């Protein structure tokens, strides 16, 4: 996405896509880096750092999903799909194409 930041912030689906990138990235860092560091190398401070950051990212994604879906009248299948992917590593990245199609065709 190359639009200016202001345009991104004004577009509900663009906001949701960026939140998806943020949530997906923090999930990968939490599960792929912080948890192994804790379990294998006994360094629990990284999960103490990444856990709350991912929690905030998840909450932000959830709020923006609710905002976008409610404002555009999404059906429950699209809402469920976009919500479920945030629990899967790389899920929000794989779902980005779907959101891009939604952005071009809002309903």
């Amino acid at each position, binding site marked *: 996405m190359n639009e200016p930041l202001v345009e991104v912030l004004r577009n509900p689906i663009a906001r949701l896509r960026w939140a998806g990138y943020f949530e997906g990235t923090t999930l990968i860092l939490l599960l792929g880096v912080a948890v192994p560091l804790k379990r294998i190398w006994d360094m629990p401070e990284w999960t103490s750092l990444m856990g709350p950051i991912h929690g*905030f990212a998840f*909450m932000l994604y959830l709020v923006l999903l609710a905002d976008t879906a409610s*404002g555009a009248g999404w059906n429950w299948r699209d809402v469920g799909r976009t919500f479920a992917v945030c629990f899967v590593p790389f899920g929000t990245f794989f779902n980005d194409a779907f959101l891009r199609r939604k952005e071009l065709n809002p309903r």
Partner: protein
Amino acid sequence: MYLWVKALHVTAVIVWMAGMVVTPLLIAWLGRPAADEGAEMGKGRRAALGIVRRHYLVLATPAMLITWALGLWMAVEAGWMRYPWLIGKLALVVGLSALHGVLSGQLRRLTTDAAHVAPSWTRYGTMALVICIAIISVLVILKPDL
């Protein structure tokens, strides 16, 4: 430092909840056309909802983000994450946050789509919020062993 963060967290919660509690009522009241307006909402009602939407975006939404950031910091700093009362509180606050998003979307749709009317469930939104706030308050103050 912890008490300062807690004070700011409570302030943010009050501002967030103040914005959320009144919004379902306003949506339910202003978001349906009057008997003499026909199928579409009048300009006056849409303008009023526009004011509500601006205040929701400027006050309630930043307050929600601050509530989450400070709350998560306190939970980690004080080691609350292993306590069941906080897990219960988090579940309710996640629900409130989702409702915040839904109300934000409804405000946007009502101010941009003249044919959209407020969904009937918004009439019960305020009461549901008050019940959630009461349960969260009990969990936070009593910290029961669930």
